[in-house]
């Protein structure tokens, strides 16, 4: 049943994606809030699927590869919808909708979640640890998307073209995009920090000091440091625009690496404990 709801949710996301693509191809305004009419119900159903998964297979099931994709996608969409409430723009959807659709699709095509035998994964602390880190990643991704939008808008203002018609003519103002990028960074940072601390404490008690040599842990700490650097550069010298965008892309790539490191990590391997 959870898989069914997830698939319905993915169908909704797919409809949103199709709408966005058509709007782009027809060079209408980027895309209007109408796209939310399919994204919001999709998100709710997606949430239902996640809750049912936990209810049926236990908390640990969230950490199978496909379920964690599903959870990350859900959080991403949640942050995107929250941003819409605050900024009344769907422009980040340009990148968020395809990302969530792909995450959801991978999860929906996967098998039913495997059962975890390891007792640690049933701990609520782990659920909190993962959810917080994922929320941080989702916020980081939106900050990255904002810096891409900033670059697009800056380029169109500098080149003095594409201001009037076309897909990019309805982007929010530079000021708004900048604010979006900064606020998401600001909100995401505490989540990642607390999530990492929790993870450290948990790992320490389960694996001992050895876990620090785990590649995933190392990468996560690097992501955190880059995150910190991003924030600092903004506070200190008002970095924005190109430099900030490159920095944010770097952070994003590092975060993806940290995610991918699950395949080589002893502590975070999905299957086999």
């Amino acid at each position, binding site marked *: 049943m959870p898989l069914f709801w997830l698939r319905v949710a993915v169908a909704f996301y797919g409809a949103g994606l199709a709408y966005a693509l058509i709007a782009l191809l027809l060079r209408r305004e980027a895309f209007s809030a109408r796209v939310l009419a399919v994204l919001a119900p999709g998100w709710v159903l997606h949430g239902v699927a996640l809750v049912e998964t936990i209810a049926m297979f236990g908390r640990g099931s969230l950490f199978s590869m496909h379920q964690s994709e599903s959870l990350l996608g859900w959080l991403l969409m949640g942050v995107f919808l929250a941003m819409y409430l605050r900024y009344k723009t769907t422009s980040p959807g340009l990148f968020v909708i395809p990302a969530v659709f792909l995450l959801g699709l991978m999860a929906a095509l996967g098998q039913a979640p495997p059962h975890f035998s390891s007792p640690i994964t049933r701990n609520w602390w782990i659920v909190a640890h993962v959810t917080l880190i994922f929320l941080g990643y989702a916020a980081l991704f939106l900050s990255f998307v904002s810096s891409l939008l900033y670059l697009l808008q800056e380029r169109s*203002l*500098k080149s*003095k073209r594409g201001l*009037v018609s076309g897909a990019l003519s309805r982007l929010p*103002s530079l*000021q*708004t995009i900048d604010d979006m990028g900064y606020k998401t960074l600001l909100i995401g940072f505490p989540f990642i920090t607390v999530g990492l601390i929790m993870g450290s404490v948990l790992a320490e008690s389960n694996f001992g000091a050895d876990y620090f040599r785990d590649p995933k842990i190392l990468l996560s700490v690097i992501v955190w440091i880059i995150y910190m650097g991003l924030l600092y550069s903004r506070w200190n*010298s*008002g970095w924005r625009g190109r430099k900030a965008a490159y920095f944010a892309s770097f952070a994003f790539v590092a975060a993806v690496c940290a995610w991918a490191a699950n395949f080589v990590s002893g502590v975070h391997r999905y299957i086999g404990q």
Partner: protein
Amino acid sequence: MKMPYILVGLNHRSAPVELRERLSFPAEEMAGALLELQALPHVSEAMILSTCNRVEVLACANGSAPDLLPFFSARAQLPAQQLRSHLYEWRGDDAVRHMFRVASSLDSLVVGESQILGQLKEAYAFGRAQGGVQSYLDALLNRAFSVAKRVRSETAVGSSSVSIASVAVELARKIFGSLEGRTVYVVGAGKMNELAMQHLRASGVGAAIITNRTFERAQRLAERFEGTAVPFDRLYETVPQADIVITSTGAQQPIFLREHGEAFMQARRNRPMFFIDIAVPRDVAPEMNKIEGLFVYDIDDLQQVIAANRAGRTREAQQAEAIISSEVVRFREHLCELDVAPTIVSLQDSMEMLRQAEIERARGKLGPLTSEQEQALEALTRGIVNKVLHTPITALKSAAKTQKSESLVEVVEHLFNLNLHANLSGRRERKAAGEARKDSAKA
């Protein structure tokens, strides 16, 4: 049935301004001119639209089409021959289409500007008050207003900026979002800068700083916009306070160079800055646009945005033309239905009278009836009448749509023995009332 409208006039494309001036109607002469028009043979209704870009007379013809040329030539005090080439005349569908286009601002000098709709509404209100606008013109004008509304909401004909100042505001919004609380720096106290400043002020910008080589002029402008005047030699140190800089000086060399821009950005901790350079030769070195976070638009750039906006409007205008074409057809159908409506009503009335009379006659023979029987009798007779009338009414309605209703109306009236003169139409009655009003106005 042909739509009885006729429109004669001239506009900014067909006639030079000298001629438009000669023909324009000041408000105090409007009433007299309207009476004059209504007194012309074959004119049953009339109104005048007079703006700086057009003078048009819209009339409703009674029988054959009236000749409005003498009216114009008398007004302009020019021989008709000389005037003819500048006037256009539209009849029937074409007059309706023209009215719709004018109301939707597709015929305007600046396509999409909405001023014309207000002017048309005024002309209509005046014509109504003076008795020139009655049923036919009323129907046309009301439809024209709703068509204009539809065009405005379904196309983007009127949504983009086409003046230097409004484009500058539009661009500033793309950078800063809301302009509230933004500081504007005005370099040079010339006319252009004043205009741009006026526009920015209207869009809600906050503080204004003004400088000029002659300090007194800066002070004068500062007073007007409740800003601060700054001596010209303090220009470079004060500019970083501003988010938006409008510059238009007579300087032969650029006064803002790349190194200035870099210094400004450093002082502003990379907060974006917008330079609007409306001077020729330019005040801002083009290399400044290469600095990150600094946006420079010179007069040509602004003109280009305007041109693009215009092109966008033209694209939208094609969509609007399609809407108007379909609305002309709809209006014609609507008008035709109005034409057969009186016949249908009198047909129904006369059958109803017949039915009532027959029931009365039968009642004597039937004796006392129970209420169920009464109801049955009522339903039976009504059913028969409705069934009999169904075919002729449908035929009338569909004939109205194909514009061949007049002969059919005659046949129906003849067959059902409808009293032609008493019933023929509210239309003729309304017309008669109009004539009466005209007479009393003359007296």
